[in-house]
């Protein structure tokens, strides 16, 4: 069971990473225009990041 000593911290670290990434998406206004972001992928030349608007 010694492998747990590594695996548990690793899983917690990955979990924290996920939460931090999620918090980042929130603070950078990435949920303000979900439909627009979905459509923008179809535009050949995107005109900028959402937080520049």
């Amino acid at each position, binding site marked *: 069971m010694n492998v747990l000593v590594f695996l548990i911290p690793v899983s917690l670290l990955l979990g924290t990473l996920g939460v931090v990434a999620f918090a980042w998406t929130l603070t950078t206004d990435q949920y303000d*225009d979900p439909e627009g972001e979905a459509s*923008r*992928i179809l*535009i050949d030349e995107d*005109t900028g990041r959402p937080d520049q608007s």
Partner: protein
Amino acid sequence: MTAACPACVAAPAAIELAQMPDAVQLSVPALRCAACISAIESHLNALPDVMTARVNLSLKRVEVRTDLPTSDITQALASIGYDAYPLDAAALGEDGDQAGRDLLMRMGLSGFAMMNVMLLSVAVWSGAVGATRDLFHLISAAIAIPCVAYAAQPFFRNAARALKVGRLNMDVPISLAIVLAAAMSLYETLHGGAHAYFDAALSLTFFLLIGRYLEHRTRSAARSAAKELTALEVHQATRQTAHGSEVVPISALSIGDAIVVPTGMRVPVDGTLTSAHADTDRAFLTGESDPIPHTRGATLHAGEVNLGAPLHLTATAVGTDTRLHQIARLVDTAENARNRYTSLADRAAQIYAPAVHVLALVTFLGWVLVDGDIRHAVNVAIAVLIITCPCALGLAVPAVSTAAISKLYKLGFLVKSGTALERLAEVQTVLLDKTGTLTTPNFTFDLGSLSPSQCSIAKALADHSAHPLARALGRHLQESVPAPLTQIEEHKGKGVRAVWTDTDVALGQASWLGGRDGEARQGLTLKIGPVTIPLTYSEATRDGVPAMIAGLQSAGLTLDIMSGDTDAKTRSLADRLGIDRFAGHMSPEDKNARVGALADAGATPCMIGDGINDTIALTRAHASIAPGSALDAARNAADVVVVSDSMAQVPALFATARQTVRLSRQNFAIALAYNAVAVPIAIAGFATPLMAALAMSLSSITVLLNAMRIGVKP
């Protein structure tokens, strides 16, 4: 001091550039797809003086940072085929949905924590024992307790608020279950116990936050769209000063100011007319559909619409002293049906919450009596609380109403109040305002008896008149070619005379042209030589009104027209639409009294109206609907705003409301059925964390799936 390098010299300029002009928001309803985004953004960004332009497809808006006047942007968009409407930044308010972001953060955190703890729990459920189990429980506690303390705060706050006023809502059993589950699990963990419910505490929090977030999201979408409607009205007036005219906010006007009201605009303040003649539409104030003629010195009220040439007036009452505001103020004192209404979820909570608490207490006392082991008795009692925790119940109503509200949003309805659908489902009588709700400010003419040459004379005369009725006639006769006229003279407020190939012709008021007395005196008359021809006209009904009436009648609702207009006009429209209950000459107070009388008789009235004269009735009625063209006071008072021009979908609103209540009830039944199976097991002391997790997830998913049936036609 000299700069060390070219970059330092350039730096101050860069700082100036960074001071961006304020953003202008424009509503662009035609925005639909990726092609629209790139067309608009590339076109606007190519304009000189436009810093940035960014499309928000979800809100159908464009945000532009520019020094250009807004009209230039509107024109630029019109040139590539998009109608754009500038939005008033003040009415739009601060953007950024802080509450929604906050809920999303809590939801995300509890979701991540739940998944991690669930992984550890799976190990325990599949047979970890001794030190390993205790270690896993400890790690779970380290994740779960801070997460619950943060993420479940909305429930704690609501529960505390309800308890403070001595009431029970759904958040009380929720908070109790979450807190007790975490506390008991911590105690068990520290004492090497077998069962810890950390995953249950977290999944409860997570599922319920999903419900809360969905509810918040649809409601804030409706709110921001309602704000957008308000922001479309530009609250500005043109004031004349010694130096010419200037455009100022209405709030800056003061008594004695000379004000110009352009054609088609609302009179901003109460005042005395200083132009010789004017025609206004008072429908918003009184419900009268005919244009009202005024002469110099007449009193005009804020809210009247100028139908003729630009008029001048001197302000006599501004701000809150105007008649418009006085009526609006009556609304604040009117009895508000909404505040008295207890929502379905609250009613369920009032039965459910005490029942759950009593059940848990009885279980605890029972086990103490049976084997005297207090720790075991507490464990079982808390297991009962967790199993019965209204996870599915908490989702039952929000999931259905979220699905219903977003479906209605697509049909063109803004549902502004959370309980609006429940109240609409109970409606038995629909009270309709006439002018502006069933009709539009247009007129249709019955010209079947006129020959083509008579039509062309009428058209020519109408084109030379500034009177709103004559102009409507001119629009109605678009296809006729105007006859050549000579010696045209307009008699203000009466009509137009002219000569057509040696014959005297005239168009104007019946009384002026020697028509008979009686009901035809107000009407429009065409005179060719000695012959007078009365031109009968009627108000144009709003798009989709006949379909709405038919739909509502077949849904078993009683319809009743309440109008401030004359009895004759109300009767003619009611006959045309096939409604046998109507009343004219209703003052705002009469409308309110009628709504009150119906409510007392148990007929649960729903008011549909658009004017300031309907506002009190809209507030008092059990439920209320306003068309998007309504005055903002009426829109604010209504529960539902019909955004589309057509009223044809209104029966679908009632049908969806009824279906919402039916599905909510079914969801309660499903949740109770799960409890009926799980509760006896929990009381008997056989409940395990695995069972709790299964029951909770399954019932929540069933309830969510059932809620999605709202999209399916009933």
